[in-house]
């Protein structure tokens, strides 16, 4: 079972490495969206520092959502997804592996670039630490929930914007606790624990249920 998980994970990572831009575009989209806000809102240090966590989290939401559009699309178009449905492996395991690979390629880079972005918004070092932690716990949840939407909208025209309509409302809890954690961190570090614990709990629940839901959605979309 672990062997199957690992095979699919390695496969998706290899594929991404062989056409690198797909990975970089998400990262740069994130950076661009984050960089746009100060231009719209004004560049006062204090305003930016209050805004920072929210903006970073909304940008992460949007980036992860847009990237999700491609999660199953390539495999759908060349028929490998169909073949995956026909293997003797539990489909939700395969989906989990694909989501894991997707997160490593699009979520993790966001976590790693967060310090740079935090600097743009003049966040304190402690806040940047909490932001990285909250992104580390939150972005996988985004990928997991988004996978359901991606599976449902597979092969539809206007998929991108339709996907966002389905998925963005579901992202709200993550957004609230993720950005909440960062905002609180500026006041007293000890307080962030409940936020982090909640995000962790979301992650556990999503990791268990989202793959099942996504594989059901995939079976429907491939009929």
């Amino acid at each position: 079972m672990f062997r199957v998980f690992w095979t699919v994970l390695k496969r998706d990572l290899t594929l991404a490495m062989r056409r690198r831009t797909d990975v970089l575009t998400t990262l740069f989209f994130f950076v661009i969206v984050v960089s746009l806000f100060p231009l719209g809102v004004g560049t006062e240090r204090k305003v930016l520092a209050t805004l920072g966590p929210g903006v970073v989290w909304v940008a992460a939401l949007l980036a992860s959502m847009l990237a999700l559009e491609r999660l199953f699309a390539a495999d759908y178009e060349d028929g490998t997804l169909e073949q995956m449905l026909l293997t003797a492996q539990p489909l939700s395991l395969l989906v989990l592996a694909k989501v894991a690979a997707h997160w490593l390629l699009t979520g993790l880079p966001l976590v790693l670039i967060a310090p740079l972005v935090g600097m743009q918004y003049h966040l304190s070092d402690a806040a940047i630490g909490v932001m990285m932690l909250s992104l580390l716990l939150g972005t996988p949840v985004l990928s997991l929930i988004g996978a359901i939407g991606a599976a449902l909208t597979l092969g539809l025209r206007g998929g991108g914007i339709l996907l966002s309509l389905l998925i963005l409302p579901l992202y709200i809890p993550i957004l609230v606790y993720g950005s909440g954690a960062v905002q609180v961190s500026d006041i007293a570090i000890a307080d962030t624990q409940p936020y982090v614990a909640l995000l962790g709990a979301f992650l556990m629940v999503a990791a268990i249920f989202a793959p099942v839901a996504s594989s059901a959605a995939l079976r429907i979309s491939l009929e």
Partner: protein
Amino acid sequence: MALNWFKFASPASFYPIAGRLVPVFWVLTLALLAVGLYWGFFQTADQLGGSNPQKEYYRIIFIHVPTAWMSMWLYMILVGWAAIGLVFNTRLSFMMANAVAPTGAIFTFLALWTGAFWGRPSWGTYWDWDPRLTSELALFFLYIGYIALHSAIDDTRRADRASALLAIVGLIMVPVIFWSINCPDPNQCAALHQRSNLMRIEGNILFSMLIMTLAFWMYSFATTFMRLRSIILTREAESAWVQDILTKEARA
């Protein structure tokens, strides 16, 4: 005469020329780097006084200004080749534009990075939404956009032309972006940033800065030509002269 020029501009004849030039550029790069760094670190004062006092960190200038310049010059060169390619439909110019882009993107990133590392000790922050900084960031995005668009299109010819057009549109937009950030409030546009002035810089510093700029130029030539050779090989793979080269390489 014009005919001669086009013959020279064919990939087949440019490939060996580039191959012979690359080592020359490497030697020049190393020599200039050695001089520039030596001069910059040992022939300049540790601290600068004056209206804008600077401690040792000002030595970042020897890489910051050259990288910032290179980032803009290389973009203009890129757009130049792209435009020539679009107008005259010459394959080599598109290849040139392609070969320049990654080096330009690297220099742009380095300008941002070195600027940030200078800003922290000097302004007390790694980043600010200063017009110059922001438009340098926009330039970086344009480079990335060029590269991303090119690699997203499988058909090389379409990729060449599409990304060339994008680069040209970008060139028109960069000044507008710079100006709009520089002057976000049209009511008080007079408050323009004062442009730094090369004349005010002390001689030794200016000297090593210019030497470093030259070194980066040489470096850009070297890497661009190396990349160009790879691009030529990939694209001309089925032509006879490439096959000759391959059999020669195989024997060697």
